[in-house]
């Protein structure tokens, strides 16, 4: 296998690369971080990380000449397994509404909007802005337990509902097609934790920062043959 982590100036690529190396430790897998669109031709698996704002990440991606086209060809054209992480997942959506309206890759029918959750239940009150407010703290930051949709997507093999993963985001994806949602979390109501369709998956959380559960998801992704 030949995993290419796309470098477009966003995010902590080193952490992602190290997590993939660890998760793939038993197999003959090459992990590379590359800003060269041509590298996607030889890739067996493609990973798009991303932290920060949607627009900045989109701009960064567009700043790498030929990368968007190479992604389209490898992921949509050739059907290579693809994993988007955090803003990398959000970029899969049609539209991003963070600091203006921006076009995403358009692989998932949906848009990226601010989390404006309200929490009326007592159990959550520690995450309220204040006790007399029903608004929750933003960003959604920390470990939250997954609700994996049935039947579990192959990347969630062995990762049951209730397992915790690490989130840090102020914006969320709203999917038009419910079937694209493969896991959710509860933060003042349900938030999409992961999306999947055909050969593409995306996680709002950071598998590379989610200890054993995250490494398991990465290993599952590497084993996935969509």
């Amino acid at each position: 296998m030949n995993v290419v982590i796309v470098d477009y100036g966003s995010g902590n690529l080193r952490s992602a690369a190290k997590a993939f190396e660890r998760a793939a430790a038993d197999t003959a897998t090459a992990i590379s971080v590359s800003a060269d669109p041509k590298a996607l031709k030889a890739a067996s698996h493609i990973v798009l990380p991303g932290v920060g704002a949607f627009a900045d990440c989109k701009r960064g991606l567009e700043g790498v000449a030929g990368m968007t086209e190479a992604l389209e060809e490898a992921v949509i054209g050739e059907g290579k397994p693809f994993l988007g992480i955090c803003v990398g997942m959000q970029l899969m959506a049609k539209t991003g509404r963070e600091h203006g309206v921006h076009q995403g890759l358009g692989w998932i029918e949906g848009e990226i909007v601010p989390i404006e959750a309200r929490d009326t239940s007592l159990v959550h009150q520690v995450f309220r802005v204040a006790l007399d407010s029903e608004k929750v703290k933003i960003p959604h930051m920390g470990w939250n337990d997954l609700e994996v949709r049935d039947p579990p997507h192959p990347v969630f093999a062995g990762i049951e509902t209730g397992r915790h993963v690490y989130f840090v985001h102020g914006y969320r994806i709203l999917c038009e097609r419910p079937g694209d949602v493969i896991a959710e979390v509860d933060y003042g109501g349900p938030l999409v934790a992961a999306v999947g369709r055909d050969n593409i998956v995306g996680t709002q959380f950071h598998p590379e920062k989610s200890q054993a559960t995250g490494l398991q998801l990465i290993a599952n992704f590497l084993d996935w043959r969509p």
Partner: protein
Amino acid sequence: MLKIRIIPCLDVKDGRVVKGVNFVDLIDAGDPVAQARVYDGEGADELCFLDITASVENRDTLYDIVRGTAEQCFMPLTVGGGVRRVEDIRTLLLAGADKVSINTAAIARPEFVAEAARKFGSQCIVVAIDAKALSPGKWEIFTHGGRRRTGIDAVDWAKRVTASGAGEILLTSMDRDGTREGFDLALTRAVADAVTVPVIASGGVGTLDHLVEGIVEGHATAVLAASIFHFGIHSIRQAKAHMKAAGVPVRLE
């Protein structure tokens, strides 16, 4: 649902842990990466490195530590101390930090917070606030390890930096730091209720009940502690079990 976070903090000086875990099975108790692995294995929710190195020349050792930790610990890592320029943040993030904590530089040049948040996203910009009580309900920010007054009100400052784009506040009571008497709960609550971002309570933890108080009474969404974990008084697991028993949502895996 989201869980509160327990964050052990390691003070690092010239590449060595100053206050560290006193575990017998650690071959090198001063090695920050070895300490980080202990906390990772215990189920800490995040790690924090605070660099207290005085000289600029020795900064590279910090970057090596962050790199070494990120290679072995697949968990969130916050790094602070001496972060003054956008380049410092970039270097730390590329080395493997997920969040960078800014303190003195934000006070010296408040627009630094906005610049950093614009460049890297609010989610990775933590502003550290060191506050001392002036009178009941009033706290002032101090810099340089509590030696220098700024004349800035802590609650006002917390609101200001979050409006500029800080994604989290690391709030330390200088009055309580090192005392093991518990958090300054009034301070913690005043700041936590004034801002819309998560607040990490810090300074003064001496018992596991103090951790619970920081959440339930202080309204923090994360608690940071150094010595109760370092000296082997309590493990992270014990702390979590205690908090769970007190009704605080924690992650136990």
